[in-house]
């Protein structure tokens, strides 16, 4: 009997071969419940559902997604046992895995070198193996366009820095782990992570001198004026992150 219902399904989906049609018609004449099933299959059929979703296909593909495809490295299998993985590299590997970062660099700008050197024990400053300075496109998008929390990303502070850049302190989290970081926006519109704490368990009590404190110290040392309130962040996002009037940039 199930086979007969499958034929009714195939008829609704235009996948029934002509040779099978006569037997199905006979079955439909004998079996009112199969007629009802066919009506259901056709009501919630390919045409109706596909039409409902057609607008989604017509939506423009976000540029960051195209960038992912066009620029993400084609990773080759490597013998990991032969590599000495530094603290920073191991952390980056974990972050890539957890946040699906492509192999682009999380790079520190030279303007921050002095501060980074002072707290380098905590900082993630990986070398770029591809010579680029882009972060994951997804995180770029979140920093560029997000004023409030979204899945896995929570902006904490947004401010204009002494180095004449917009910077944002933020949290990234999974359901078990989280990390805090600061990223600054370069003139080319790309955000670069300048500091990042090692991932830690959710709910863990951070001891004095913790990585998070280093981030706060960095903010205190680099902030110019007051951090933005949420409406100001929204306005900055809307306006494409123009330099504030007092910056004279």
């Amino acid at each position, binding site marked *: 009997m199930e086979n007969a219902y499958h034929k009714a399904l195939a008829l609704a989906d235009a996948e029934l071969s002509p040779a099978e049609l006569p037997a199905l018609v006979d079955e439909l004449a004998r079996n009112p419940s199969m007629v009802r099933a066919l009506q259901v299959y056709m009501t919630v059929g390919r045409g109706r559902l*596909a039409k409902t979703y057609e607008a989604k296909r017509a939506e423009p593909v976000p540029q960051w997604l*195209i960038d992912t495809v066009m620029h993400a490295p084609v*990773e080759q299998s490597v013998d990991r046992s032969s590599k000495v993985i530094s603290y920073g590299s191991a952390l980056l590997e974990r972050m890539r895995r957890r946040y699906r970062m492509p192999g682009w660099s999380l790079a520190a700008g030279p303007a921050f070198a002095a501060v980074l050197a002072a707290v380098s024990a905590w900082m993630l400053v990986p070398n770029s193996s591809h010579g680029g300075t882009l972060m994951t496109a997804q995180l770029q998008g979140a920093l560029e366009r997000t004023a409030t929390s979204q899945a896995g990303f929570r902006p904490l502070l947004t401010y204009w820095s002494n180095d004449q850049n917009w910077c944002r302190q933020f949290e990234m989290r999974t359901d078990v782990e989280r990390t805090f970081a600061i990223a600054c926006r370069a003139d080319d519109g790309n955000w670069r992570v300048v500091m990042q704490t090692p991932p830690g368990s959710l709910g863990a009590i951070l001891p004095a001198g913790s990585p998070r404190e280093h981030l706060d110290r960095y903010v205190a040392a680099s902030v110019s004026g007051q951090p933005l309130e949420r409406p100001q962040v929204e306005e900055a996002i809307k306006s494409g992150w123009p330099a504030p009037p007092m910056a004279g940039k």
Partner: protein
Amino acid sequence: MTDEIRARMVAALPRLRRFAYALTGSTEQGDDLVQETCLRALSRVERWQPGTRLDSWMYRIAQNIWLDRMRANKVRGEVVDVDVVEELPGLDGRDVTESQLALEEVDAALELLPSEQRAVIALVCIEGISYKEAAEITGVPIGTIMSRLARARQALHAILDEPVLARTRLASAKTGS
């Protein structure tokens, strides 16, 4: 070779995004799934056989990633971001078109289906893929594809026709209560 594959991947993105949207019910999560699919495809590009359909291979990767996530969520429990609640429909006056409403209804109905049924609906009914191709992508026999399709459509029809009753019954079935 890789450049050609990248170009073909970009060409497949609109369909892949729609498929991912149908699976996840959210543009953001769908794009996240598409991104992960592309990265995984690029990391295993040597496994794709020239002459076969690249988009089918990517559908398979996307579906596997998504099913893995669904299984992991079952173990860990669903996590809903707080800010998402503000955007839920029905909490305030909405000014949406009829087509958007229909999409929301179908999205909500799809979300109530078991993961495997949702995937097969997305492939066959939304992406227009044949039963045979859907069987290849999902790695199950055609008969299983058709059984899942039939059950999924009966459930969708019930939800869209009698939303309250069907949703309650399906939600109970999903949570095992």
